[in-house]
């Protein structure tokens, strides 16, 4: 995503956003409301155990979001860790007017979008010396669920198209918001989504 000006990426997590997070982007909260509120509050005051509770409740959603957006298992692990660390650092700015999980989702998206490693990492793996086997032959299947073909095809998309597809079609973000998050024009976001959908349909049809 080398084009455009992406100065918003880092600041979005604390931005007063113009509209609530789209419904599908909101992660469902599993814990009891009181206990969760309590652990958010305690974590904000430096209670690491309380933060671990928040981690346990949310890690599977954070991890899968990272994995889909970056398409690389070990990078996804690092990014998920980074997201929690960032959340810890920013807990003071969490105002509680949205669910913690919704706020954490946004922090995670920002961490993934702010990361520059995806492309380099993937390229390094795609070109093992003198070996033309497809990527990940040896690795275990990283994705859950039934729609494996779709998951694998998403992972194989070019980086820009993949991130925008995941944000728009999986997470339910709107182009306007994606454009602002990534720092590209809305038209670019639309064009990338179009490209992603086209490539995916082609991949799934073959």
């Amino acid at each position, binding site marked *: 995503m080398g084009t455009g*000006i*992406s*100065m*918003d990426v*880092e*600041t979005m997590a*604390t*931005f*007063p956003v113009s509209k609530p997070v789209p419904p*599908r982007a909101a*992660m469902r909260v599993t814990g009891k409301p009181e206990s969760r509120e309590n652990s958010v509050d305690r974590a904000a005051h*430096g209670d*690491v155990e309380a*933060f*671990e509770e928040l*981690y*346990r409740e949310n*890690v*599977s*959603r954070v*991890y*899968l979001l990272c*994995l*889909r957006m970056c398409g690389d*298992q070990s990078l*996804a*692990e690092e990014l*998920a*860790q*980074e997201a*929690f*660390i960032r959340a*810890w*650092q*920013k807990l003071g*700015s969490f105002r509680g007017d949205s669910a913690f999980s919704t706020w954490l989702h946004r922090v995670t998206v920002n961490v993934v979008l*702010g990361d520059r490693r995806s492309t380099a990492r993937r390229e390094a793996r795609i070109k093992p010396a003198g070996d033309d086997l497809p990527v990940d032959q040896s690795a*275990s299947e*990283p*994705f*859950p*669920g039934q*729609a494996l073909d*779709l*998951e694998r095809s*998403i992972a194989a998309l070019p980086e820009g198209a993949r991130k925008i*597809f995941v944000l*728009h*079609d*999986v997470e*339910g973000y709107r*182009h306007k918001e994606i454009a*602002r998050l990534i720092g590209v024009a809305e038209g670019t976001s*639309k064009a990338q*989504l*179009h490209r992603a*959908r086209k490539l*995916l*349909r082609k991949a*799934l049809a073959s």
Partner: protein
Amino acid sequence: MSCHEWTNRIDDFLDGRLEAAEAEGLQVHIAGCPSCADEVASIRELRDLAAALPRSLEPPRDLWPGIEARVSATKVVRGRFGSRAVLAAAAAVVIVSSVVTAYFIGRSQAVMVTVEPPSVVESGPSEVLLASFEGLGVNNYLDTRTELLDALDARKHELSGETMEVVMDNLLLIDQAMDRIAEALGEDPENDFLMKQLAGAYRRQIDLLQRAVRMPAEV
């Protein structure tokens, strides 16, 4: 309207972004055009599949230990260090990125810049600078920066004095560049090029701080 022109509107149609009249026009068209009807059906199917994907997956290993280690390290520190001093400012933005990048990418080949020691400017960033950031959609520049500085502060005992010095020097250079740009923007507020320069300087500054915050412990 030709088939091709309708095809270009199918994404907008499916994402609910077409005006009512246009949406109706497209519906009329696809009723009589199997190719466009296929296109709509196929994108719709993909979109529904995507929306129905699972939303959670346990990571293959427990990520908590790595988080805990870093979280515990930053637990107590909430103080500032030199955040006012480094809000000081004046220099060339172009060299900054290459210096910073060179430093972090290959520390052996790092190009050290000599800068004058930061002069403490108590007044903080100028009105023009803050207004320009608002123009860029960055409304909480100072908060973001302060948060990152706090995070760096929390790590200062893990990083070598040399590293901290380079980070602070580069921060100062970027600050200075920003002030220069803000000064120019004061004369020519609509200047697109200057706004881009400012956005670039901002991005580099945040990037610099992030990299520093993420650097592996040295001490």
